[in-house]
C-alpha cells in the first residue's frame, strides 16, 4: 500500500489511486481528487458526494449507481452529467471510498 500526497494531504491509496482509509478524507481533499480527474465541484456534485459518504458510514459499502439514483434524490441521468462516462467509479474516487462491489 502506498501513501500518496496531494494538495498537502497524505493518505493511503491502492494501486489504482482509490483511497483505502475513508477516514483520511475531507471535502478539501475531495475537491483535489475531483480536479485530478478533470471535475470541478459544484453544489450538485457535493450533494451526491455527501450522500455517498453518509451512506457508506451507515452501510459500510459504497453505493452503486442504482442506489445513488434511487436514494439520493439525484436522478441517474444527472449523475451521468455530473460524473461523465463512469459515474459510479468517479463518485467513489472523489468521495474517497472503494469502488462499488454491487452489480446493479
Amino acid at each position: 500500500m502506498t501513501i500518496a500526497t496531494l494538495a498537502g494531504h497524505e493518505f493511503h491509496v491502492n494501486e489504482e489511486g482509490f483511497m483505502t482509509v475513508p477516514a483520511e478524507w475531507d471535502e478539501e481533499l475531495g475537491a483535489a481528487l475531483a480536479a485530478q480527474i478533470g471535475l470541478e465541484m459544484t453544489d450538485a456534485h457535493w450533494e451526491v458526494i455527501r450522500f455517498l459518504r453518509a451512506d457508506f458510514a451507515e452501510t459500510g459499502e459504497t453505493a452503486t449507481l442504482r442506489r445513488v439514483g434511487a436514494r439520493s434524490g439525484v436522478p441517474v441521468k444527472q449523475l451521468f452529467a455530473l460524473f461523465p462516462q463512469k459515474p459510479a467509479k468517479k463518485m467513489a474516487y472523489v468521495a474517497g471510498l472503494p469502488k462499488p462491489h454491487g452489480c446493479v
Partner: protein
Amino acid sequence: MTTTDTAPAPVPSFDDPGTEGRKLAIICSKGNLDMAYPGLILANAALGEGVETHLFFTFWGFDMITRSTMGDLKFTMLGNTATHMPQGLGGLPGMTALATSKMKKAIADLDVPEVPEFLEQIVASGGHLWACRLSADMNHLTEEDLHEEVEGIISASDFIELTNGAQLLFI
C-alpha cells in the same frame, strides 16, 4: 515531512483511450423473468463503464418491452434443471406463480429494479432500446403498445447496421 513510500497520488485511468468508441449490442430473445435480467444487468454495467449500448428485443424477448407483459414476466421450474428440484413439481398448479414471486422477492431484496423500471434506468444512463419489426408484426403490436422509452421498431438489418463494429451478446 516525507516517508520513503510516499508518492504523488496515482490517478485512476477513467478515460482509457483503448475503450473509447467501444460499443455493445445485446439481443434479448427470451421472455422469462430469469432470462430478462442478464441482458439488463450487463447493459447497465456497460453503460456505467461508458460503453455505448444498444438492446434489441426480439421474439419472446418482446415481452420485456410490451406494456401488458413487461411487469409480469414469469419464472418456471419446468424444463430448468438448474433449480435442482424434481421436474414433476414444476407442473403442479401454482408452482410457476410461487417460483416467480420468490424470484421477484430475491431480486427486490438486492435493490435491483423490476423490468420496466430497469429499462428506464438503462435509458437514463444513455442506453438505446429497439424493438424487432418482425416480432411487432407477428403480435400485431405498435409503438403505443411498448415501453415509452423504446426508440423505435426496426428491422434486423437496421439493427445490424446501427451496431456496426459493436461487440454482441445474444441472450
